[in-house]
C-alpha cells in the first residue's frame, strides 16, 4: 500500500517532500493502528488540517468496507456451494505461510541484539503458554524498552 501512497502524495500531487514522507512513515509505524490509516490521516492533516485528515482516513477505509461487504454477502449467498469450501481449504495453509513469512521478515529487522531476543522469546513464552493477554505483553515490552535501552 505504501508505494502507492508515495506515488500519489509526492509525485502526482506534490503535497509534500520525500523527506517529510519518510518521517511520516516512521511515525505511522511507531504509533498504534494500521500503518496505512496512520499515514493517510497524517498526510491529510498536513495538507488540509482536521477535515483533510478526516477525508483521507475515510477514503482509505471506504473501499475496504465495500469490498469486504461484497465478499461477506457473496460468501453467505453461496454458503452451500462446495466451491467455497474448496477455495478456503486452499487459502488456509497459504495464510499460515504468509503469517510465518511475515513473522520472519519482522524478526529480521526487530531481533537486532541480545536484549531484543530476550524480550521476544520471553514474551512468546508468556503469551503462548502462560496465557498472558497480548495487550499487556505490548505494555510490558514498551516498559522493558525504556529500562533496557
Amino acid at each position: 500500500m505504501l508505494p502507492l501512497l508515495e506515488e500519489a502524495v509526492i509525485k502526482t500531487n506534490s503535497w509534500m517532500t520525500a523527506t517529510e514522507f519518510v518521517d511520516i512513515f516512521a511515525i505511522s509505524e511507531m504509533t498504534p493502528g494500521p500503518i496505512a490509516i496512520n499515514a493517510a490521516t497524517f498526510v491529510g492533516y498536513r495538507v488540509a488540517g482536521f477535515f483533510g485528515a478526516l477525508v483521507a482516513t475515510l477514503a482509505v477505509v471506504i473501499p475496504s468496507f465495500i469490498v469486504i461487504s461484497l465478499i461477506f454477502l457473496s460468501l453467505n449467498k453461496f454458503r452451500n456451494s462446495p466451491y467455497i469450501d474448496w477455495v478456503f481449504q486452499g487459502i488456509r495453509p497459504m495464510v499460515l505461510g504468509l503469517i510465518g513469512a511475515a513473522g520472519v521478515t519482522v524478526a529480521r529487522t526487530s531481533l537486532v541484539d541480545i536484549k531484543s531476543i530476550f524480550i521476544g522469546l520471553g514474551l512468546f513464552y508468556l503469551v503462548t503458554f502462560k496465557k498472558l493477554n497480548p495487550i499487556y505483553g505490548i505494555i510490558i515490552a514498551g516498559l522493558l524498552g525504556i529500562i533496557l535501552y
Partner: protein
Amino acid sequence: MLLKMFLTFLKIGAFTFGGGFAMIPIIQEEVVNKNKWIKDEEFVDTISVAQSSPGPIAVNASIFVGYKIKGFLGALVSTIGTVLPSFITILIIARFFSYFRDNIIFEKVFMGIRPAVVALIFSALYRLVYKSYLGYIALGFAFLATLILIFFKISPIYMVLLGIIVSVIYNKNLKSKT
C-alpha cells in the same frame, strides 16, 4: 453487545503496533479467546479474506469479523472502533510533530515493542496451527509456502491463488472418482 464490540475493537486499534500482522494475535485474543464471538477456524478464514482483499489487513479483518458477529451494524462499529485510536493519536502527533520525532523515550518504547510484535505473530501462528485442525497435508503446504515466501520474492496474492487452484482441482478430481 454493540457497545462491547466497539470497546473491544477500540482496544484492538489502540494496541496494534507495526501494522496488519501484528494485529492478528490481538484480534485472536479478544474476539476468539476472550469473547468467543467466532471460532478458531472462522478466524483463519477471516485472515484469508483480509489478506486477499485490497486495503489494510487490520481494517479488512475488523470489518469481516464485525459482519460475522452482528451484520452490517457490527461491521460499522468494529471499523470505527479500529480506526478511531489511530485517527486521534495521529491528530495529536501531527500537531506536535517535531517534539515526537526527537523524543528519546518514544524511541526506547518502540525498541521494546518491536521484538514483542515478533513474539505475538509467532504466538498467533502457534495457536492457529494447533487449533484450526488443518491436518498434516495442509500443514505441510503451509510450511512449504512459508519457505517459498521467505526465500523468493513472490507476491502473496500468487501464493493464495495457487492454493485455491490446487485445492479446487484436487477436490474436483476426488469427487469425480467417487
